[in-house]
């Protein structure tokens, strides 16, 4: 009786409560979480926070230092840097969300097909993944941009294409290891179809590690976007991006250091935030680490 009572009074903790509890006991994880929340909030509420249109030129003197009118100063066209940093954050989050979302979805499908499908298809897909991974992202990006022209969509496309093999390979490995797991065999013996095995057993097992990996990839994706934009191969002017701000600032660094600072600090913060958070999530969800703790 007392054992039954104990079972009722200790319900299975939800994922969110596990995360929050895990983060509470992890200082870097908390810092990462706070940074990510702040960055996301700034990106989402940018239009309400900005005082100026990020593309509006001559909103103040050119290359001005920070002031009460322009919190981060102005760039070479007199545009408000604070507004441009916020707008750049939206672009960064959009690229990260869209490209990683697309890469995850496509990687999931291709990984499952490779892992659970016939051998020849697995070999073919592996060849494709390896071929795609052999291109360095920026070089591949430059080639694609030269062919189709620079735009936000192109950046998303480049990042998605170069990220798909990473996720697909992980899913393939997971799917192959689960393919012959006892509980999957048991399900199969009980007459369960492939969709049920996939969605009820395989997916939940691979999704966690995948999401952690994706969260740790966010800074990489943002750096790729910033890198392409820095090289003039990313978003079109006058769209703001941290890479564009950095490039403009770099060109006029003798006139004012503020644009370079304004463009680089968010990249540093976003890298720290997502890396800390990703590591904390890995600690929370990785059963081996939990066991060790």
């Amino acid at each position: 009786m007392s054992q039954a009572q104990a079972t009722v009074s200790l319900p299975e903790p939800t994922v969110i409560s596990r995360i929050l509890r895990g983060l509470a006991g992890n200082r870097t994880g908390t810092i990462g979480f706070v940074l990510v929340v702040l960055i996301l909030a700034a990106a989402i509420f940018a239009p309400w926070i900005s005082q100026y249109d990020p593309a509006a030129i001559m909103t103040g003197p050119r290359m001005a230092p920070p002031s009460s009118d322009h919190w981060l100063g102005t760039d070479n066209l007199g545009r408000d840097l604070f507004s441009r940093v916020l707008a750049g954050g939206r672009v960064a989050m959009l690229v990260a969300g869209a490209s990683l979302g697309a890469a995850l979805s496509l990687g999931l499908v291709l990984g499952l097909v490779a892992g659970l499908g016939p051998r020849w298809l697995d070999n073919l897909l592996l060849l494709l993944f390896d071929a795609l991974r052999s291109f360095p992202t920026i070089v591949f990006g430059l080639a694609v941009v030269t062919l189709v022209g620079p735009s936000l969509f192109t950046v998303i496309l480049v990042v998605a294409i170069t990220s798909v093999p990473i996720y697909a390979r992980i899913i393939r490995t997971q799917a192959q290891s689960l393919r012959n797991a006892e509980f999957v065999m048991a399900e199969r013996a009980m007459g369960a179809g492939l969709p049920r095995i996939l969605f009820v057993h395989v997916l939940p097992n691979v999704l966690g590690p995948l999401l952690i990996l994706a969260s740790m990839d966010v800074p990489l994706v943002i750096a790729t976007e910033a890198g392409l934009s820095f090289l003039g191969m990313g978003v079109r002017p006058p769209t703001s991006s941290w890479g564009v701000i950095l490039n403009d600032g770099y060109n006029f660094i003798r006139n004012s250091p503020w644009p370079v600072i304004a463009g680089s600090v968010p990249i540093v913060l976003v890298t720290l935030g997502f890396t800390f958070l990703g590591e904390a999530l890995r600690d929370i969800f990785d059963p081996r680490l939990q066991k060790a703790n």
Partner: protein
Amino acid sequence: MTKTNTVSMASAPFGRRAFLKGAASTCLFAATMPLGSRIWAQSGQTLRLSAYADIDALDPAFYQNGYNVDVMNCIYTKLIRYKAGREWDWELESAEEIEQVDDTHIRFKLKQGLQFSGDYGEITAEDVKFSFERAILHDSPVKSDWGPLDHVEVTGRYEGVIVLKEPFQPLWTIALPYGTGHIVSKKAVLDATDDGGNFGMTPPVFSGAYVLAEWKSNQYVRLTRNPAWTGPAPGFDEIRILPMDDTKTAERAYEAGDLDFTQITLSSLAQYRQDPPANTTIEEYPSLYYVWLGMNLDNPALGDKNLRQAIQYAINVKQVVDAAYFGEAEPATGLIAPGLPGHRDHSAIPVEGDLDKAREFLQAAGGPPSQPLTIDTLNASEWTTMAQIIQAQLAKVGIPTQINVQDSGSFWTLGMESEGDRWKNMQLVLNRFSMLPDPYYATSWFVSEQVGIWNWERFSSPEFDKLHQKALSEIDPDERAAIYRQMQDIMEQSGAYRFLTHEGSPVMYRDSLEPALRPDGRPLLPRFSGSV
């Protein structure tokens, strides 16, 4: 001079003890030098500078741009060359004498003993004839530099007469001292090609102070002394030219110590004046370049002249130029820079533009275009700045635009029919051409014959073409200048052009260097001297 040298050498106390002392102090000095400097000193004197674009043609009869000619100046000789200094003038190079006999005959005599590299022997009048005539014979895209050249008559081993069909004013300012004036060996070119035509990027022979030792596409051009050169010794053992299409990059490379000479951007000029890098001289030269916004007349979206005029009037050139060049450049009134014959004091459209007129034209065009117009521009800070200001100005009257930033390789072939169909989609394009000290050089790229080559606006006017021909042989300077002003009026009236600026040409270099520069600040590399 000789005497002074002899005396000073003889009187110098240069015994064994002095030698040992000198050697010891040299070793001590070398040992205390930083490692980099020691390696540098061992490798000889190398002049390093940047170029706005990589070379893409080394055949003088088929040169493509001024950066090709910078290298050609080093590896080939020519009868006359531009004088270094602040005034446009020429001086003899491989010619011992040259004179205009009448309007259509120019007699020259080569210096004796000038050698081609390899086993191709002495430079003769036959080589001069071959070099000059082949641009026309092989229908070169720059054959117009030779205008009405009929033939070159060889009258002796070193003597000849250039015979023109009609007077040609740019002969002394362009044809002889610039690209097509360089001399190649007839035998070497015929050996290397089937018909004496374009040899592209592999010169079969050198006749200048340097030879092309190495070229790595988009990385560097390395020139070394030509052992066969019998003229005055060049100032440097080696010249390294690094292509950098953004001058800001060149500025940073100079500051990092990777360059000894570079152009600088006008937007950085004020800062450099205030706070120059160590041991650096900064000089400013007026530029002859012309920058403009062109409109593709064959693109359906720009077919209505009213829309084009709306664009012309919506652009405040003063604002564009001030923003891009930080107030260091002046708005242009046409293609031809101040100081050259044919310069217009005013453009028909005010440099400040006129928004009311722009709106009127836009209304007459039936309103703004339904799709944003594209502005193609090079991926360099000044250009993207200009594009963004123009975009904002056009937005003020309701014309939506979208900026396409292109790298140099992609940009410079945009309007060329030979490079595919991209010219069809091109709409507005920010462009800049280099210039020489004759108005003919500016207008020659906009004649009907150049449509789809360098005339990217695809502007074609029989009247313009006729005037262009007329100006070539016009001897009266005032009449000639008036013709060029009229030609710029026709260009502007077509609605295909909004002239922006001639920029400026500031340069910086190490104090120990003695550069030889044209009056527009362009380097004359073989004549650089000093040390680096």
